[in-house]
């Protein structure tokens, strides 16, 4: 945490009101985001309890698993979830615009421009918290290897095709969320904490209710008071008035309300089964049979009552789960409102375009019939992902600073940028045959950047280009910089490309469009440190035991995909074996 943020936290803690942490919005916010608020069963990995999902804040779709341990109910939940979410993800796939991408020509190896499709927009999924993002990854992992009846007629619990498909989408956006600055999947707490600074610690900012209370407290209270109430206040029934944003639930809720309700549901279900059996066996002794009723009639009546009771018990569980979900659902939309009020940063659209590329690429992989993402990345893919994330982080840091004077202030304090008024412009020229302009600027500033002679500095021009310069010397209260680029080709600089005396300028020591490190070697030249070149497809992959892997699913990949995903990894990606006590 930089000193500027620390100071903002102190100010907020001092008077109980949150402070701005950014002056513009640094993340793309879709016009029609899909919001997902999941709840999970305590103590059981990835056994969903329920979820609210939808794009309309007034009409979320409620999905509930009345008995989380029941595999059939859980699978029905996942199928419903796929019904609710998959159309949203697929809706963006058909509206495309033409774009160019440079690709290596397979014959000559040269980079050539190819015309490709780029989706005009992409889906955006919002979850309440960082744990929610983790949960999306878990759901993706649990769904994408499910087998459909078409793939394998003998599979014990065939899934509708949309379930593994949604699993792949969730996996994709879950992975994408690891890329700094990406916006396909956002956690509301993280985005809000990026844009506002509260008077509590980072750790406490993970509580969506408390965070919102700090940022936008109810009238008449301070953020500090409201946050404390959101964190701790319990109603007369002992339940938190602001339920946790999930996916974990409040233990008091689990013990006092949920567990008894689920027990009642179980009892009602047992009674339904029992009644059905009683009817088929024509057993008049079962249940409370009025003596005057005929055997069959009373059995029917009993069955009817049992079904009624089961419906009531299910309704009770649904209402309970909804009562925990709804406040979080509203909180996420409240956060959306707050974020919408901020103007979007100038370079956000550029980053969103990369998200659209990512979406388009996955759309293409799905359409090409490629297999689901492997359980584990192979070394080459992992190295590529890591390097892409590092580049994205550097770009994000630079872009946020250029978009937002508050972020730039932090960089200036850290000595990574300086801003000030131009007090003198001295025109000089290079001594080449065609002399080039090299104006010397004296900049009055109180910033104290750490510069060596000839250090490169960068400045954003009004038209979005970057001007380069180099540091010449320190003067008392000022710095001298020689402008070395961005002035056009002529002998005289283009108008507006050199600041005038009295202009305010801001130079940075960091590049504005940093590129990644050296390119990685081609997959076939993978060094032994990273597992060596991938084994040619087909026979005998090293490492994984392919002997008992059963019927291989139909796989049609692009050559490029086959190269980055060695066969060994794919062979290991059989669906999870079904055991007697599966959670998912």
């Amino acid at each position, binding site marked *: *945490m930089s*000193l*500027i943020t*620390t*100071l*903002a*936290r*102190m*100010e907020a*803690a*001092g008077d109980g*009101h*949150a*402070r*701005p942490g950014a*002056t*513009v919005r640094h993340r793309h916010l879709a016009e029609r985001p899909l919001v997902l608020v999941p709840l999970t069963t305590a*103590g059981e*990995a*990835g056994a969903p309890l329920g979820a609210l999902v939808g794009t309309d804040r007034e009409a979320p779709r409620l999905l509930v698993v009345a008995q989380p341990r029941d595999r059939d109910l859980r699978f029905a939940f996942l199928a419903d979830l796929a019904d609710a979410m998959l159309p949203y993800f697929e809706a963006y796939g058909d509206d495309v615009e033409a774009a160019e991408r440079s690709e290596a020509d397979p014959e000559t190896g040269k980079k050539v421009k190819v015309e490709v499709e780029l989706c005009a927009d992409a889906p955006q999924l919002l979850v309440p918290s960082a744990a929610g993002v983790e949960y999306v990854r*878990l759901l993706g*992992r*649990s769904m994408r290897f499910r087998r459909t009846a078409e793939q394998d007629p003998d599979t014990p619990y065939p899934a509708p095709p949309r379930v593994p498909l949604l699993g792949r989408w969730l996996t994709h956006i879950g992975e994408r969320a690891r890329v700094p600055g990406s916006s396909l999947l956002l956690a509301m707490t993280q985005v809000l904490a990026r844009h*506002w600074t509260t*008077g*509590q*610690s*980072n*750790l*406490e900012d993970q509580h969506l209710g408390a965070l919102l209370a700090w*940022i*936008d407290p109810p009238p008449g209270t301070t953020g500090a008071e409201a946050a404390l109430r959101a964190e*701790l206040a319990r109603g007369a029934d002992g339940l938190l008035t602001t339920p946790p944003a999930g996916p974990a639930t409040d233990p008091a809720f689990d013990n006092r309300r949920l567990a008894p309700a689920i027990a009642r549901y179980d009892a009602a279900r047992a009674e339904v089964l029992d009644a059905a059996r009683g009817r088929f066996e024509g057993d008049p002794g079962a249940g409370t049979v009025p003596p005057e009723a005929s055997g069959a009639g009373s059995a029917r009546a009993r069955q009817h009552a049992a079904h009624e009771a089961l419906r009531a018990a299910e309704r009770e569980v649904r209402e309970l789960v909804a009562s925990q979900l709804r406040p979080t659902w509203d909180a996420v939309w409240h956060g959306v*409102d*707050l974020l919408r*009020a*901020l*103007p979007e940063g100038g370079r956000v659209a550029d980053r969103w375009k990369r998200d659209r590329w990512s979406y388009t690429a996955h759309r293409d992989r799905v359409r090409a019939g490629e297999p689901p993402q492997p*359980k*584990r990345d192979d070394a080459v893919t992992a190295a590529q992902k890591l390097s892409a994330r590092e580049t994205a982080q550097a770009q994000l840091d630079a872009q946020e600073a250029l978009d*937002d*004077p*508050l972020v*730039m*202030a*932090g960089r*200036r*304090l850290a000595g990574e940028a300086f801003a000030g008024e131009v007090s003198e412009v001295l025109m000089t020229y290079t001594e080449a045959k065609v002399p080039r302009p090299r104006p010397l600027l004296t900049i009055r500033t*109180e910033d104290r950047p750490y510069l060596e002679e000839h250090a490169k500095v960068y400045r954003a021009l009004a038209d979005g280009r970057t001007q380069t310069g180099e540091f010449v010397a320190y003067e008392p209260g000022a710095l001298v910089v020689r402008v070395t680029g961005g002035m056009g080709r002529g002998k005289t600089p283009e108008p507006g490309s050199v600041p005038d005396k009295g202009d305010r300028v801001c130079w940075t020591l960091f590049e504005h469009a940093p590129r990644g490190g050296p390119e990685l070697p081609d997959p076939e030249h993978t060094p032994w440190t990273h597992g060596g070149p991938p084994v040619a497809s087909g026979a005998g992959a090293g490492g994984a035991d392919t002997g008992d892997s059963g019927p291989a699913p139909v796989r049609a990949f692009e050559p490029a995909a086959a190269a980055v995903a060695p066969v060994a990894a794919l062979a290991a990606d059989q669906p*999870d*074996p079904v*055991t*007697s*006590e*599966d*959670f*998912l």
Partner: protein
Amino acid sequence: MKADGGAELVRLLHERLGDGSPAPGPGPVAAPDLTAAGPEGRTARTELALREATAAGEWAFFDHPMLALSVAGSPAYLEPDAIVVHPDGGWTVVEIKSFPMVDGSADAAKVGAAARQAAVYVLALGELAGRHTDGEERPGGAARAAGDGLADRTAARGPEGSGGDAADRTAGGAQAPGGPLADHAAGAAERVRHRVLLVCPKDFSNTPTAELVDVRKQLATTRRQLSRLTRIEALAAALPEGTTFDLRLSEDGRTATRPVEELLAAVESVDAAYAPDCLAVCELAFHCRERTRAAGAVESLGRGVRGELGDLTTVEAVLAAARGEAGDAGDPAVEALRRAAALRSEALAAASYGGRPVDGGAAGCG
């Protein structure tokens, strides 16, 4: 998981070890009865049973044994999930957790916590192994009881191991001929294995999977922390006479009958070094947070905050220094704060965002 006297667990451990030790037989493994009265009794029973099982030279499974460890001069009783005794006399701590291991990896924070917990058990077992050796009049080793990795591995690859898995299985779990000899060679120093077996649900199922976790680092940390702990007598001496944290539970064992003020006064008499991380682990954290916030201490905003603030310890002092109302301008921390304050207000003014923060639409673009 622990059905059949932990046979499944022992099988998992053997499979993970892959060190050529003899495979456990098909039936249940030896699982001594560890019930006894009171913690002291159970500790003594565990110690005795461990000695017997080690001498027997077979796989043995200890369900919820009890160990004693001296913490700050007072014995603390620990109850690991299980301990497995190897045929070569080695002991492995088993930790069973409920978080899942998906595709062979689990939540790093949770694994770390489990490793720290298991390290304490390993330490306690090490002390016990020391006593054990002394009892058998074997020289040395007691001090190094736990965590000597290299020697451990050599012991595990002892002469009897070379036959490999298959050969051992034909032996049907009978004691390998080289067993006692190898035991002698290895000595007690390597008795407690420094790799603990972490057992978790596999992926999304209820079937168990296990991974060996090396806890040498955690062991070293714990040992150092324990050696630096102030002794309980010294802590108690600093408190006012008669301080007690007794809740004075009523007969049902749930309701505290002690007045809140009395308890509060007792808790107040102890200093607390609160940091937000406490919220995740300590039941008193909310109380400490309240006190820290009331005192305006900067730690309530996070441990890292202190780093750049020099000797400014309260929020008020920091704000006053930043506003230029207090503090020595020559102090680098104060200077940096004032600079930060100036830059921040300049940036907010530039974005015409100034003054009060959160009135939504008022934000203009800079």
